[in-house]
């Protein structure tokens, strides 16, 4: 192919590859820097001597963070929420996507239900009524306040029901002829055939529960019930309050920089681990759910 061999194109190609790699570096270097700070000795971290490589390598910041009971509690709350929340999300997504993927003939008023679900994506009561409801249900300070309001994930349902609709109908009919009911069809046929979509949804649901901090902030009155991200948010908020123009010139608040970095890094680490494993699935899942012919 001639078009790849002109000199200008080669120059462009070289610059392009450098540019693209540069952009990718900009996306991850701040994270590398954070890790370097967390692994450096305190003096170097506070004096801002750390670049992308730890200075005076040690893990004392991590030890200090893990010895902190509050951090540990918050970690446990998050794990609980993650397991409970993801299971509830997935179960409800399966149960709702299956009937809604049927045709109007097989399931009367299907469209009414779909619109009821979609409408919640478009309009909501807003922050205050939502908060009032949770408090009047006496869910404040309960882990269910973190799980139930987000139990039905509208977007997940739509993604999965679109996936279900692409599957061949004959499999399902064969299942009914063999005496299977709807539950058999759903769990034995539809779900196993939808693994790429299901894996994507599990990833999204887990990431959401891991990262979500706002409901923890408003629904939990006691700090020891805070999930990890909420705890971290409260911690960082304290430091941020010190950042006025004058304070910024003082280094006082930076004295525990390596400790903060270690905590932030630990809050990010699980995603770092899960992410590469599921990446190929979600790329497929996203494209499938959003680009349609």
């Amino acid at each position: 192919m001639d078009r790849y061999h002109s000199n200008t194109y080669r120059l462009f190609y070289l610059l392009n590859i450098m540019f693209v790699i540069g952009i990718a570096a900009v996306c991850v270097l701040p994270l590398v820097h954070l890790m370097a700070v967390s692994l450096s000795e305190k003096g170097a971290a506070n004096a801002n001597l750390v670049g992308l490589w730890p200075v005076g390598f040690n893990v004392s910041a991590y030890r200090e963070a893990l010895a902190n009971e509050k951090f540990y509690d918050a970690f446990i709350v998050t794990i609980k929420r993650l397991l409970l929340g993801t299971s509830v999300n997935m179960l409800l997504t399966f149960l709702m996507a299956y009937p809604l993927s049927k045709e109007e003939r097989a399931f009367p008023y299907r469209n009414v239900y779909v619109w009821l679900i979609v409408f919640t994506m478009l309009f909501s009561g807003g922050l205050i009524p939502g908060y009032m409801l949770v408090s009047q249900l006496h869910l404040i300070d309960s882990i269910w306040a973190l799980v139930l309001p987000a139990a039905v994930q509208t977007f997940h349902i739509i993604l999965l029901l679109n996936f279900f609709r692409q599957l061949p109908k004959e499999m399902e009919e064969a299942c009914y002829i063999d005496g299977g009911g709807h539950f058999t069809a759903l769990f034995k046929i539809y779900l196993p055939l939808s693994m790429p979509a299901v894996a994507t949804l599990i990833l999204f649901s887990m990431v959401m529960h891991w990262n979500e901090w706002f409901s923890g902030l408003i629904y939990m009155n006691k700090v020891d019930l805070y999930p990890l991200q909420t705890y971290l948010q409260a911690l960082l908020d304290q430091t941020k309050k010190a950042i006025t123009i004058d304070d910024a010139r003082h280094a006082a608040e930076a004295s525990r920089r390596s400790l903060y970095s270690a905590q932030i890094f630990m809050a990010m680490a699980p995603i770092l681990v899960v992410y590469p494993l599921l990446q190929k699935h979600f790329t497929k899942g996203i494209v499938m759910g959003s680009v349609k012919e």
Partner: protein
Amino acid sequence: MMLLPGMALLVIFQYVPMAGIVIAFQDFVPTKGFFGSEWVGLQHFEFMMNLPDTATIVINTLVIAVMKIVLGLIVPVLFALLLNEIRQQGVKRTVQTMVYFPHFLSWVILGGILVDVLSMNGGAVNRILGWLGIGPYFFLGDPGLFRGVIVVTDVWKEFGFSTIIYLAALSGINPVLYEAAVMDGANRWKQVWHVTLPGIAPIVVLMATLSIGGILNAGFDQIFNLYSPLVYKTGDIIDTWVYRAGLLDMQYGLATAVGLFKSVVGLVLISVSYWAASRFANYRIF
């Protein structure tokens, strides 16, 4: 029958709060509840219109959201075009993995990182600017810079993820079209102009249309984690204001009224843009 548990939760946690909107018309006192509180009609809405904050937060919300939408469309398209040129699969995949990653981190984590990287006191960005003889800037505390920081950091977090969709659209372009263009004597630029861009135009238009619906969502999570009273003037948006007025200052009725205003405008915009998307791009969500 299978729908029951899900629908029940949906009704409780989505539709019941919609009924809770009545507190926008009440002088709501939590101990008296929805039924005991006094009705005040449209008083909160009148108050809202006369509040000096209102103009500020609406303008901030719109400016930030519009800048995010525009850059959030242009940057991923350009990046996808450049990335699409790369033929070393290893490089391409590694770059993709790296640029998608920030999408999966919360604004709490990124806020923590950005506060550090952007700090006046030896933050990486100010140090680099220092070598070039510029700055230092107080990025997160200067009202003149804050919106820019918000938009740039948001694009930084999300552009990689949006790139996925455009890359998929690019790979869907029929290679025969390129061959035909080459036969007609098109150089690289002309190929991009006459084949690639028209090929992805429908999906770009679709994404643009759908993003209009979110124009009052300037990004609560992000701003909440990065702002401070120093930058309320340019950085306070509807959602952050509702949070402070409602949950911190306990002006429930007023905050609900402002929230309702936002939801209604949002609903109208989403309906219009969805209608436009289905009309012009033949797009349907289910």
